[in-house]
Every structure is written in structure tokens, then in C-alpha cells.
């Protein structure tokens, strides 16, 4: 299979200390890769590097077989879309306006969207179930609705690769599942490739083709969920005892966090 995005021996630092060291990774067409790892392991940084938002000091990043440093910003935006962890809108733009912003890199000097752009935005909103929110202000939305709007905006970019930075962290269980269902539906129907950062290991394991465990700025393990999500690996990188068994329905690894004491709650008399 073709690799759309390739990282070879990538090193990155903000200041003097290396933040990411010797990362090797390939993203194949149509796959969902789940990225997990403890806080501060460099997950968000790695995602920004893959999008060319941060410049690496050593190594090589190839986007469709061309070094990412040779792309202009607008060209990257047509290949890769990012759904940020959170985004603050200073003005109350309408949902439809926010989604249309995804067309930015497709417009020329004339600063207005045409019929085709509206149609694409419309379609993205239909796919993400946000069409009924179109005329609402972005400020009126709940966390889950806002996340879906940001995904609609990313789809409107018409990029083949979508990077998601913890899209489920503010969501309740129903919306978490819906988010993964949506992503999995999009990869199946639109042929997108997805990298998603998540702290919901068991849930991610149900939907991701591969899982990448990042620890201390390096790839600790990468592979199919069943190979990678083991009690040893998870306990090791998170420094927290866990039990891993099999989800009886999906047959994917399921992580249970073990409390350090046998009886973590005292009976109230």
C-alpha cells in the first residue's frame, strides 16, 4: 500500500532539550492510527510536526513523496487538515461561516466563496450531522457540537489526511462513541487517512487499525491494537498498574485501571 505521510528519523526540539528523538512512522492510505502516551510525551508536538506547523531540526518528512518543507502552506492545507484540541473564536461567527473557512486554501485572490464551495461545505455538514446548526453562532454550541463543526471544517478542506488532537476529551460516552463512529465512517466512505490522539485507550483500540504508543519523545511501540495494548506496555509508559483483557464483543484489548490499594473506598458506616 502507498504511504501518504512518511517520517524518517525525525528529531525536534523547542529549546535545548530534544522533545522528539528518532521518530520513524508511515501513514498508509485509508487507515486510522491511534496515538496514545502519557502527558508530555510529545503527542501534540508530533501531530504539529506532521502538519508542518513546526520545523524539525533533523530527519525527513515526506508528504506524498515530497519533502513537506518544499510545500507552501496553502498546498499542505489541501492535503492535511487538523482538528485542534480546542479552538477559541473571538467573534461570534456562524457555524456555516466557520465551516466555509475550510475552503480558504482553494480560493484565489477573489475573496468570496462560489457555488461549489457552498456545496462542499454543505456536504461536510451533512456528513457530520451539523447541518441543523448552520445558522447558529459558534459560541452557542456545546463541546460535542463544536467538535463536530471543527471536523466539518476539516472535511471542507478536502484533504486526504486528517489529524485529530484529542477530539474526545471533553465529550461524554455517547459523543465519544459517535466521534469514533464518524471517523471510521469517513475513512470507509471517503478514503481518508486519520491519525487521532486519544486518552480513551480501549475505545481507540476498537476503531484504530494501528496504535502508536509515544513515550518520552520516542515511539515506544507501534502495531495492531492487540499486539501493542498489553498490560506490560501500558503500565510501563503510564507508570500506573492496569489490567488488560479482551472486550467480549469487539475482541479488542480492554484496559482496566487498577487502584493501588485493594479497597480504595472506605465503607461509610
Amino acid at each position, binding site marked *: 500500500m502507498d504511504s501518504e505521510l512518511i517520517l524518517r528519523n525525525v528529531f525536534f526540539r523547542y529549546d535545548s532539550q530534544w522533545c522528539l528523538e528518532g521518530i520513524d512512522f508511515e501513514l498508509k492510505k485509508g487507515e486510522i492510527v491511534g496515538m496514545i502516551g502519557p502527558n508530555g510525551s510529545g503527542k501534540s508536538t508530533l501531530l504539529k510536526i506532521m502538519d508542518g506547523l513546526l520545523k524539525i531540526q533533523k530527519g525527513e518528512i515526506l508528504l506524498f513523496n515530497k519533502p513537506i518543507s518544499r510545500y507552501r*502552506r496553502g498546498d499542505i492545507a489541501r492535503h492535511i487538515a487538523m482538528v*485542534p484540541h480546542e*479552538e477559541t473564536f*473571538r*467573534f461570534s*461567527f456562524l457555524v456555516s461561516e466557520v465551516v466555509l473557512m475550510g475552503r*480558504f486554501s482553494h480560493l484565489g485572490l477573489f*475573496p468570496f466563496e462560489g457555488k461549489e464551495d457552498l456545496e462542499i461545505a454543505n456536504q461536510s455538514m451533512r456528513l457530520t450531522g451539523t447541518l441543523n446548526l*448552520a*445558522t447558529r453562532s459558534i459560541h452557542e454550541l456545546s463541546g460535542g457540537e463544536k467538535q463536530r463543526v471543527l471536523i466539518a471544517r476539516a472535511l471542507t478542506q478536502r484533504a486526504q489526511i486528517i489529524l485529530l488532537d484529542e477530539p474526545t476529551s471533553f465529550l461524554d460516552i455517547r459523543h465519544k462513541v459517535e466521534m469514533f463512529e464518524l471517523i471510521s465512517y469517513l475513512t470507509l466512505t471517503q478514503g481518508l487517512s486519520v491519525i487521532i490522539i486519544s486518552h480513551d485507550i480501549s475505545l481507540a483500540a476498537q476503531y484504530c487499525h494501528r496504535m502508536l504508543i509515544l513515550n518520552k519523545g520516542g515511539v515506544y511501540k507501534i502495531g495492531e491494537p492487540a499486539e501493542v495494548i498489553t498490560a506490560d506496555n501500558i503500565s510501563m509508559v503510564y507508570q500506573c498498574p492496569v489490567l488488560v483483557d479482551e472486550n467480549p464483543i469487539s475482541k479488542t484489548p480492554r484496559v482496566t485501571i487498577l487502584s493501588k490499594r485493594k479497597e480504595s473506598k472506605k465503607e461509610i458506616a
Partner: protein
Amino acid sequence: MKGNEDQRVTPLKVLYTGLILTGMLVIIAFISLSLGPAKISLKDILTWLIGYKTIDQTAWMILFKIRLPRILLAGLVGFTLSLGGVVFQALLRNPLAEPFILGVSSGAAVGAIIGIFFGCGFTFGVPLLSFVGALFTILLVMGISSRHGGLESSTLLLTGVIINAFFTAVIMFFITTTSDSRLHSMLFWLYGDLSQSKYVQLSISLPFILIVSGIIYIFSRHLNLIVGGEESALQMGVEVELLKWIAFLGISLITGIVVAFSGIIGFVGLIVPHLMRMILGPDHRLLIPASSLGGAVFLIAADTLARTIISPSELPVGVITAFLGAPFFIYLLKSRGSQWTQS
């Protein structure tokens, strides 16, 4: 998206808004032309324009040598300052931003006050020194704030505040050591004074203002994205650093030019963009032309009041913009909210 077709900003909507504001601009200009110590009525002007009546030499002089250049300059200054305000508020993601916030005005003031102190003329000497002061300041502020070729917004703001404070000290030094009529000139300059308007100032500033506002308008949809954060704008394809350099330099250049001719007219660059955003929404493709034209209307009206309210004496126009603008703005803020949200 059928239901909200009417809410979206389209070229037609921009055109209509532009035409309405241009109409207001023409009306306010005619009213202003007819007001002043010499009685020349609006009817006289209009009947003369369509060729029914002649006007005498004195009236002609008053209209075209004194009032018209002043109205046109007020319009240009208001246009430029409001354009600067709307762009700076977006780039710095800060509701308090206005074109003077990076220190251009205080740099210009130091230049102008040194000019007045040494008795330079108001047609060329003072504006030239003022413009040099403004240019020097913006290059200084941007030079200090740039790191690895990037401009960081909060560093820019802080540097601007510090430079402002430093130059205010210099200005106070000159003011306190001056006691004759130059002091009056200095104070008038510091509060904005359009009484020295000449056509030559218009022909110098107009080309720059047209070029810069044209370039800025091409970037109007870039500004929409920057409001959602620099990183997400970059991600969606905006060359953020390039845009910041172009916009900060361009706006500061034309602000420096108009301040050199008008002095420091405060409040226009802050209030007009907010007012327009409350009425028309946050899309810069509409907000930029509306704010610029609205600024022109606002400043012509304010300057007309400044020169007529205690006639035959005059007030600095900055007194009017602040005295009327502040209460009006507070009223709007209380009744409609600022349209700025943190969440």
C-alpha cells in the same frame, strides 16, 4: 445552507453596504460644507452646483480653499484610522487594539513636537518630522519584537506600551519647557487638529492609502481565519507571519502619514470598528470597507462639530471624538455586548 443564504457575506452585500455608506459620506460632506462662521447655505451650494446661481469670490474661497480640503482630509484620516483599528484588532486578537497601540502615534508626536519647538512650518516641516518619528518607532517596535523572523503578538503589544511610555516622557519634557504660543500649538497637535488642511496633503497621502487598503482588502478573508487563532489559520493555509509583517507595516505607514497631517485623533480607530462589528457581524470582507467608510463619515461629522461648536473659536477634534464617542460607545456596549468572547 439555504436558510442562511441571506446572512452570508456576498459581493453584493459588500457593494450595497459600501454604496449606503458612500451616500452617507456625500451627505455629511455637503452638510459640513455649508456649516461655519461664514453663512453659506446648503441650498446656495446645491443651486450653484446645478448651475442656477453664481456664488461670489469670497464664498468660493471659503468653500474650496478652507472647508473642502479640511473635509476631505478628515475623511481620509477617519478612513485610515478605522481601517487600522479593524485590522489591528484582528491581528492582535485584542479588543483594545487601535492603530496607535504599537507606538506610532507617540513616535509621531515626538517628531511633531520637536518640529513645533524649533519653529518648523505646519505644511511640510512638522509633518515630515512627525512622519520620520512614526516610521522610526514602528521599525523599532517591530525590530525589538521579531524573533527568528516571527512577530509575536503579546511581545509586540508590550513593546508598544513601553515605547509609548518612553515617548510620553519625552513629550512631557518638551511641553513643560515651552511656555509661549508654541505650547498651544503642541497641545492642539496632541489632540488632533485638522485646521492646517491643504490639498497637497491629500495628494501625498491618497495614493498610499489607496494602495495599502487595496492590499489589506485582498487579505480580508485571511483576517477572518486569524481571529480563530494563528496556529489554526496557519493550518488552513494562511501565511501568517508574512501577513503580519505586511499588515503591521502597511497600516503603520499610512497611519504615520495621516497622523503627520492631523495630529493624534484618538478613539476613531477604536470605536468605529466595534460599532460596525456590532451592526454587521465579524466577517472582515464586509467589516473592512464598512469600517473605513464609517470612519470617514464619523470623523467628518466630529470635525464639523469641532470647528462650529464654539465658533469662531475651535476645539481640537480629538476632544469631540472622545467626548461624544465614549458615552455613545458605553451605551452600545451595555445594550448590545461587545461581540468579543473568550470562549
